[in-house]
């Protein structure tokens, strides 16, 4: 079972990484970028769980370790073929 977790800063929280990359892209001529936010993608492979059970475990992992609930949100996507 494979899944993908996306961890992103909550809306409103300053994304210093995104802001600096936006500026850098503009400097390279990519002025069409209106907004850019950078987060983490966490690719997980789990042993022998069905999709629903895995989903629940992953939510727990996010809540306990993978995301920082003070400043981050997360979304979980199960991957096709898993």
């Amino acid at each position: 079972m494979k899944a993908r977790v996306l961890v992103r800063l909550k809306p409103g929280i300053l994304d210093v990484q995104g802001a600096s990359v936006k500026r850098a892209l503009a400097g390279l001529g990519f002025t069409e970028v209106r907004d850019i936010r950078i987060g983490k993608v966490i690719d997980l492979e789990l042993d022998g769980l069905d999709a629903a059970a895995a989903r629940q475990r992953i939510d727990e992992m996010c809540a306990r370790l993978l995301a920082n609930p003070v400043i981050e949100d997360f979304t979980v996507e199960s991957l096709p073929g898993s």
Partner: protein
Amino acid sequence: MKFGVVVFPGTWSDCDFHYVISEVLHQPVSYVWHRETNLADFDCLVLPGGFSYGDYLRAGAVAGRSPVVEALPDFVARGGVVLGSCNGFQILCEAKLLPGALMRNECLQYRCQSTYLRVENAETPFTRALRPGQVLRMPISHGEGKFYADWETLRALKDKHQIVFRYCTEDGRLAKEANPNGSLDHIAGLVNEDGTVLGMMPHPERAAENAMGGTDGLLIFHSLLGSLVEDGSFLKR
């Protein structure tokens, strides 16, 4: 020999290099703003340490595409030499002026500490005053200094003697515990094929006075200056 110390937004060892070159070595030196593309005045450019543009994406990534860095290939082709230390090394790799990449330290923490370096190639303009196998002491200060290259690149680096410094123990042995960041093959510094661009994670400018705990870093500058004074050959190569 006229030195230029490049200043990017977020650079901090620019002042330290400037101080060492002018106050310790008494050589002419000036700062070079990151937008500058006319480098005709200089013989040696220093890309200093720091966090250019905050290093928020990857260390050196943004600076690696800046105007001054894009002017470096021409500068080198005309006979200039480039010394990149710490962030400067990261920038040179990002700009493809040196092969490989610098990744997060294996310990996943920043490290500021003293290290020992073994001289692997004493034939470059930066190491002429040194002996092969000589051990130098120099501090590091970085979070992303683990050198990585794929297998073919590493083999080419070895074949062409591009590896200049390796982390080692005080008595010159290569050992896991002497490698502060998990660098591939203990690599601490390397040059381009022509030997005119040196990238190294350690800070020679922090090892340039006895009061700072040692002067091994000066040897790199003495190599540069000595080779110029003697015959200037590497500049005409």
